C-alpha cells in the first residue's frame, strides 16, 4: 500500500494539468518505477497523486514532417528500444534506455519520468544531451519548448513547473542525420544497476574529419552535462585514436565528479576519460571512420 491521500488517473494531459493546478502538493506519476519506490521510503507520503500512466496522446514514437523525431513522454523504455524509428535514426538512445534497471522496469518506466526525476544518473540523459533533445512541456499557460541542456537546474531539480506535464522528447533532424553515437554506462554489475558514470558521444564525419561532436556525461556533476568547449576544439580533427584520447583529455576538464560511497572522485575522473575515449572511438567507427593506428 502506497502512502497516498488519493490517486487521480488523468484522462488527458489537459485533465492532468487541471488536476495538478487544484492542489499545489499534488505529485505527478507516470510509470511509477521511481515514484512508488520513493513513496515506500516515506517520501511524498500522504500526498495526492495525479497519474498520467499510459495516456495515449503522449505515448509512442513518431516522426514529424520536418524530420523531427518525437518520443511521447509516457513511452516506456521497452517500446523506445523496439521502435523501428529509434533503431533507424537514434540507435544509441534505444541502446541506452535498454540499460535502465531490469526488463520489468523497462516495461513500465518511461522516458519522461527518467528525465523529470532530475537525477544525474538517468540512463537516457547523456544520450539526449548528445542528441540536442528538446523537451515540450505543457501547462496551464500553454506549451513551451526547453532544450535539455537548460532543463536541469540542480540535483533532482528541473525547470518544470508544478502543474506542467512533459509531453514530448524531440530530436531535431540535424542531430541525427549522418550522426553516429555511442553511450557507455559504467556500473558495478551488468544489470539492475545505477550508473556510476555514463558517457555519450555523437559525431558526424566529413573526409575522415570531425564535422560535429557532442560529448555528454551523467554522474559527472550534480546534473547531466555537455562538454561544449571540448566539442568546439575537436571540430576539424582527424579520425583516430589520438583524437579520441584528445577528446577525453578535453572532456574531463569540463566535469566535476565528486566522491561518494559509490566511487571516488579520482576513479570517476579516470572513468570519464576512459569512457569518453572508448565511446569516441566507437562512434567514429560507426560513422565510417578508420581509426586503426
Amino acid at each position, binding site marked *: *500500500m502506497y*502512502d497516498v491521500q488519493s490517486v487521480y488517473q488523468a484522462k488527458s494531459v489537459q485533465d492532468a494539468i487541471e488536476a495538478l493546478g487544484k492542489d499545489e502538493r499534488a505529485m505527478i506519476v507516470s510509470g511509477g518505477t521511481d515514484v512508488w519506490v520513493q513513496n515506500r521510503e*516515506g517520501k511524498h*507520503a500522504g500526498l495526492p497523486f495525479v497519474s498520467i500512466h499510459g495516456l495515449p496522446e503522449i505515448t509512442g514514437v513518431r516522426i514529424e514532417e520536418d524530420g523531427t523525431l518525437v518520443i511521447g513522454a509516457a513511452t516506456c523504455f521497452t517500446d523506445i528500444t523496439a521502435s523501428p524509428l529509434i533503431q533507424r535514426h537514434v540507435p544509441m538512445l534505444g541502446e541506452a534506455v535498454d540499460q535502465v534497471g531490469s526488463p520489468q522496469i523497462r516495461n513500465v518506466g518511461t522516458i519522461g519520468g527518467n528525465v523529470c526525476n532530475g537525477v544525474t544518473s538517468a540512463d537516457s540523459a547523456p544520450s539526449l544531451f548528445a542528441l540536442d533533445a528538446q523537451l515540450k512541456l505543457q501547462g496551464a499557460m500553454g506549451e513551451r519548448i526547453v532544450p535539455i541542456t537548460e532543463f536541469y537546474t540542480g540535483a533532482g531539480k528541473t525547470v518544470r513547473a508544478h502543474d506542467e506535464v512533459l509531453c514530448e522528447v524531440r530530436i531535431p533532424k540535424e542531430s541525427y542525420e549522418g550522426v553516429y553515437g555511442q553511450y557507455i554506462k*559504467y556500473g*558495478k*554489475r*551488468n*544489470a*539492475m544497476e*545505477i550508473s*556510476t558514470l555514463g558517457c555519450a558521444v555523437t559525431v558526424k564525419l566529413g573526409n575522415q574529419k570531425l564535422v560535429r561532436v557532442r560529448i555528454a556525461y551523467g554522474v559527472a556533476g550534480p546534473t547531466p552535462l555537455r562538454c561544449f568547449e571540448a566539442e568546439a576544439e575537436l571540430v576539424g580533427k582527424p579520425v583516430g585514436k589520438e583524437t579520441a584520447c584528445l577528446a577525453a583529455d578535453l572532456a*574531463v*576538464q*569540463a*566535469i*566535476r*565528479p565528486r566522491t561518494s*560511497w*559509490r*566511487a*571516488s*572522485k*579520482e*576513479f570517476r*575522473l*579516470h*572513468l*570519464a*576519460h*576512459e569512457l569518453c575515449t572508448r565511446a569516441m572511438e566507437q562512434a567514429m567507427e560507426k560513422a565510417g571512420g578508420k581509426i586503426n593506428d
Partner: protein
Amino acid sequence: MSVGESITRVDAVQKVTGQAKYTADLAPKNVLYAKLVHATIANGRVLSIDGGEAEKVNGFVKLVTCFDVPKTQFPTPGHPWSVEKAHQDVSDRTLLSERVRLYGDNIAVVIAQSSLAAAKAARLVKAEYEEYAPLMSAKEALAHTEHPLHEEKPDNLIAHSHFTVGEESYEQAKAEEPDCLELVKNYQTQTVQHCHLEPAQSYAYMEGDRIVVVSSTQIPHIIRRIIGQALSLPLGRIRVVKPYIGGGFGNKQDALVEPLAAYLTTVVGGKPVMVELSREENFTATRVRHAIEFDTRALVRRDGTLIARKLSAYSAQGGYASHGHSIVANSTAAFKQLYRDRKALECDAYTAYTTMPTAGAMRGYGIPQSDFATECMSDDLALMLHMDPIDFRLKNCVQAGYKDPHTGITFYSYGLEECIQKGKKAFHWEEKRKEYAHQTGDIRRGVGMAIFIYKTGVYPISLETAGARLTLNQDGSVMLQMGATEIGQGADTVFSQMTAETVGITEDRVHIVSTQDTDYSPFDTGAYASRQTYVSGMALKGAAELLKKRILDYAAEVLNRPAEELDIRQNNIVQAKDGDVLLALAKLAEEAQYSLKHSVHISAEYSHHCTDNTFSSGACFAEVEVDIPMCRVKILRILAVHDSGTLINPKLAEAQVHGGVSMGIGYGLYEEMLFNEKGKPLNDNLLDYKLPTAMDSPDMEVEFVQVEDPTGPYGNKALGEPPAIPPAPAIRNAVLNATGVAVDSLPLSPQKLFEHFVRAGLIKEEQGNV
C-alpha cells in the same frame, strides 16, 4: 535403487504452480502487523520514547517500547542447547533494547491493523538518545572500551582462543631455518548478507495458553526452545511451525523475529501478529557474515616446504553475540586442517562486539573467510618461490587419513588430490599459465585456483542428534516425517530417495511431510553445518531399516515363512534369494491394518545420536579477463570440483554447487555492506548491494570425485555449504595471475581495483578540472 539417481525434486510441482505456501501466504486475514522502530544512532542508550504522534495514525493498535519488555536475556544462535553451562551460548539479547548497540537496533515496535498503518506509525515514533562513538571493526572495538557494548564483557571481547600444532613455536622454527623465506600479510574479508529472497518473517497467535509461531526458519525445534527462554515459558506451551521457506543460507539458523512475534501476540490477547521484515531490515536487523581480519606470517623453505605459520584472526561480531566466537574458531581450524606446517602453527582468534549488524551463521561458517586467507597465502608464497601454485598446494596440503589433533575428526574418504588433478586437466592449467605468463596491454587474462576442506556436521563441538518417523499407509506407500528441514537445498527429495532405497519401494510411494511442526515432527536440530544428509540421514536409515523389519515380520506371519527369507523390492514382498514376487506390499499393508486376526499399525520412529564426523574437500578453478582501465573482472570460465562422497542425487548436487559458486562469485567480486562514518548502512537494498544477476553469472562447470565415505549413511558427506568457499580466492588468484596485482581484501570491486592498479602503475591517474 534410488540413491544415486537424479530424480526430480519432490516439491518442484508445488513450487512452479504457486501451491507451495510460505509463511506470509498462510497468515490469517485478521492478522495484525508489527513494525519495528529502529535506532538512528549506532552506539548509545535510549533515554525516552515518544509515541504521541504514532498513536494518532488510523489503525494504530499498540506501541511496545524497550522499557516495556521483559528484561530476560536470551541467546539466539541455532545451536543444540548445551546442558553444561560453560558451553552454553551467550545470552545477551532482550526482545527490544534500551542500550543501542548498532545503527537500526530494535528499540520499539508498533502494532497496527495494516502494514501501511504500522509503517506510518513507526516512522512517527520519536526517541531521545545518549550517543557514543561507533565501533566499526574488531580492532577498534578492542581499543575503545569506555562504553562497553555489553556489561558482561567490559573489554568488548567475547572470547579469545588459541591453539598450536607442532612441538615448537613459530619463532623457534624461524631460528632453526635461517634459509627460509617469510611472508607477512594482512588478509581481510568483508561483511556480506545472505540475501535469501524471502525476507525474515514470522507470525504468532495463541491457542488457549499456548503460543503458536509460524516462521520462515531452518531450525523449528531450536526456535521453540529459544522462545521459551526469551518469554520464560516452559517449552511445552510453545508450538513452532515451519512451512516452505524462501532460502536461509544460515541467516535463519538463528532466532530472528520469532521471540518478538511470540511476545507480541501475548500483549494483544492472543490475536495473530505478523512481524514481516522489509528488505532493508533484512540487511541490518537479521544477521550478516562476519568480517574477519587475519594477520599472518608464513615460513617456507626454498623448495616450497611449508615450515610454520602464525596468525591472529579478528572477527567483528556486531552488536549481539549470536553464534559469536564459534565462527572464528571454526574459521581458524581450516589453517591446521588444510595445510601441513612441518614445524609449527600458532593461531589466536578474537571475537569482539562492534556497533555493526550482528554477524551469525552464513553458508560455510567462517571457512570462506579463512579460505580466502589460506588460498591467497598459498599463491603469494608460490609467487615468491617462483613455483606453480598447484605444485605448492600438492606439496603442502592435507593428505589421506588426516586426523584433527584436537577434535579427532578424520578424513575418512579422501578425494582432494584427485579434485585438484581433475580440475588441472580440465582447465589446461599448465598451457594457460604459460600462455598468460608475459602479457602487456589493457586487457589481460589469467587462471587461478583455490582448495578447501570442510567438516560434516558439528560433532564433537556440539551435540548431533536427529529423528525420523515412517508410517506404512494401507496402500503400501509410506509417510515420512523428518525433524530436518527443507530450505531449498533439496532435503525432502534426498530423504525420499533414502527411504525408497532402504525400505525397498519406489520414490513415488514415499510421501514426505515437508512442514515441520514441533507438536508432531520428530526432533532434529535443523538445516545447518551441511549435516542433514549425513546426521539426519543416519536417523532416517535407522527408521527405514526398522520399518522394513516390521513389514517383513508381518509378511513372515502372513506368508508363514521365516522373515530372513524375505525382502522388499520394487514395492513387493519377494523371496530374498531370487527376487520372486510373493505378495504386493500394498496387499500386505492393507492386511496389516484391517486384519481381523491380527491388526498392526506398522510404523517406525528412530532417533540417532551421531558421534562421528568426516571431511569434504574440493577445488575451484577460475579463468578471468581483466579490463585494466575499466577496473573490471570478467569470469571466462569457472569450474568447481567437489569431493563429497557418494552423491544421493547428482543433478540436485550439481544445482547446489551452482548456487554456492554464484554466492562465491558475489563474495569475490561484488558484495559488501557499506556504512558511513556514523555506522549507518549505505547500501541496505538490492539495488546498491550487488548480488550477481544472471548477466553477471558465467556458466558454471561442476565435477565430482565420488569416494564413498564409510561413516556416511549412504557413503555421503557434506555438500551444502562447501561450494561457496573457494570461488572468491580462486578469482583473486586468477586476477593476480593476469595482472601481477595481489588484492588482499574482498571484494575485488572496481573502486578497489582502481586503487590497486594506480599503485601498481597500471593506470595513470587523470588530472581533471578539480
